[in-house]
């Protein structure tokens, strides 16, 4: 195990169940009894077919789910040993510690520079030198610096999809998060852009652990240290990526990763 606090997991999820409310109907179960650990410095990939609860799981980890869709949660999610759903955990602070990158590349309607400094400025950072440094560091980390360093004042919507997605990653990293969540970050990208994003993730993982929800099974195999397989709201199995792909313990995992899934 690597990271600052060897021996303690960065993230510990225990018996997590979740159902969201539907107006005038029964609550819909999205997750059943999930338990999962992530040490610092690792990339965890979550694979599984659509509607298996992967995205919901991700959105619970930084309490983004409650912004759009209220629901009922049981079990616990601990970040560095602290329950993120306990009353004294500030959700806004949590979202800086656990950053999020969405599936659709989305730039805020402002310059590249302002996109990246948006989070730090909200958190109260105003020193120009600090902000400049954050912009360069994060753009370098996301492998975007060379492409945009001469036009940081350009409106970010003028970038290509792949560039926007790397900008999103840089924007998330600007928060100096402990954990970065990525919800199918490459689903709208071409193979070249996908490769660049994957490259970036591997490069940053020593500082920032990542959880990557992906529909591309091979992407998990390429970048992830650990992989978890979700199916119909349940965690079927999780473990080191190589082991899970070579010798899956569950037949359903085997069926899914070898493409025999109906």
């Amino acid at each position: 195990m690597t990271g600052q606090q060897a021996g303690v997991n960065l993230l510990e999820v225990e018996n997590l169940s979740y159902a969201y409310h539907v107006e005038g109907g029964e609550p819909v179960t999205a997750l059943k009894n999930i338990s999962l650990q992530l040490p610092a410095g690792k990339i965890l990939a979550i694979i599984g077919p659509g509607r298996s609860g992967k995205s919901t799981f991700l959105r619970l980890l930084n309490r983004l789910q409650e912004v759009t869709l209220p629901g009922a949660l049981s079990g616990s999610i601990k970040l560095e040993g602290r329950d993120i759903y306990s009353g004294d955990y500030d959700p806004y602070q949590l979202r800086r510690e656990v950053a999020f990158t969405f599936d659709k590349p989305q730039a805020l309607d402002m310059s590249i520079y302002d996109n990246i400094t948006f989070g730090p400025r909200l958190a109260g950072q105003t020193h120009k030198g600090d902000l400049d440094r954050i912009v360069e560091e994060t753009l370098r980390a996301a492998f975007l610096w060379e492409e945009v360093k001469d036009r940081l004042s350009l409106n970010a919507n003028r970038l290509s999809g792949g560039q926007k997605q790397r900008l999103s990653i840089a924007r998330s990293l600007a928060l100096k998060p402990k954990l970065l969540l990525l919800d199918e970050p490459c689903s709208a990208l071409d193979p070249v852009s996908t490769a660049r994003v994957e490259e970036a993730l591997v490069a940053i993982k020593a500082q920032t652990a990542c959880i990557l929800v992906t529909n591309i099974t091979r992407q998990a195999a390429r970048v992830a240290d650990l992989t978890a397989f979700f199916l119909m709201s349940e965690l079927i199995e999780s473990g080191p990526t190589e082991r899970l792909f070579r010798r899956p313990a569950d037949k359903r995992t085997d069926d899914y990763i070898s493409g025999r899934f109906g």
Partner: protein
Amino acid sequence: MTPETMAGNRSYNRLGIGLSRLMTVMVGAILIGILVFLVIKGYKHLSPGFFLHNPIDLGREGGIFPVLVSTVLLALTSLCIAVPFALTTAVFLTEYTRESWLTTVIRFGAECLAGIPSIIFGLFGFMLFVVAMGMGWSILSGGLTLACMVLPTIIRTSEEAIKAVPGGLRQVGYSLGATKSQVIWHIVLPQARNGILTGIILALGRVLGETACVIFTTGISLEMPTSFFDSARSMSVHFYLLAREGISMDMAYTTALALMGMILCINVAATWLIARKN
């Protein structure tokens, strides 16, 4: 299908296309006709002096300087009052409430407000601001009344603009640690800016051209206003009085031409903004 019916269909088709062309040309002709008419009737007195000199002899001679200033002041006053109200209402309706009977009632109310004839607004403004609240005939009374009148326009367009902001951008805001009000202030409103501006500009056009409710609430004083509590005369009211009282048809046409030009410029600006947004 027989060749005869096909030929029949074709000629019907031609007829339809021809008719719709004709109608479209007529619509354009109305606008151009009015403009040409005003230019022919009004261009004689049009000069920089017309805008910069005081009227002489009730407006038979001279210019419209105080009238122009009053018009601009009146329009700005009404927008300064209406925009904050309308914008907060639009934000409340779109961001802070779920669709319910309450929002339906508010929206329906705003729509009804848009359908009230302006002279009724004038009467209302006269009773409330001029008489009951003791503001007298003044730019303030007129501005408040006009603000009531254009509220629904601005609310409607702002609401549409705010709704058009992709939900994903709000999520990005939250994911970067922003609170709801920060998301609205820093992400939603800047993104909706063009749509909101368009609504405000359309409202400005209406305010500039309004006559009935201005006579009731701002009065007809030709003096240069020195405060918001002074009575004043807007361009449309000036035009109405010059024509209605038989003071000078020539000057009336020139005033109308100037007003028309102003409103046209504003509409062109609005169209340009919408085009730039898309």
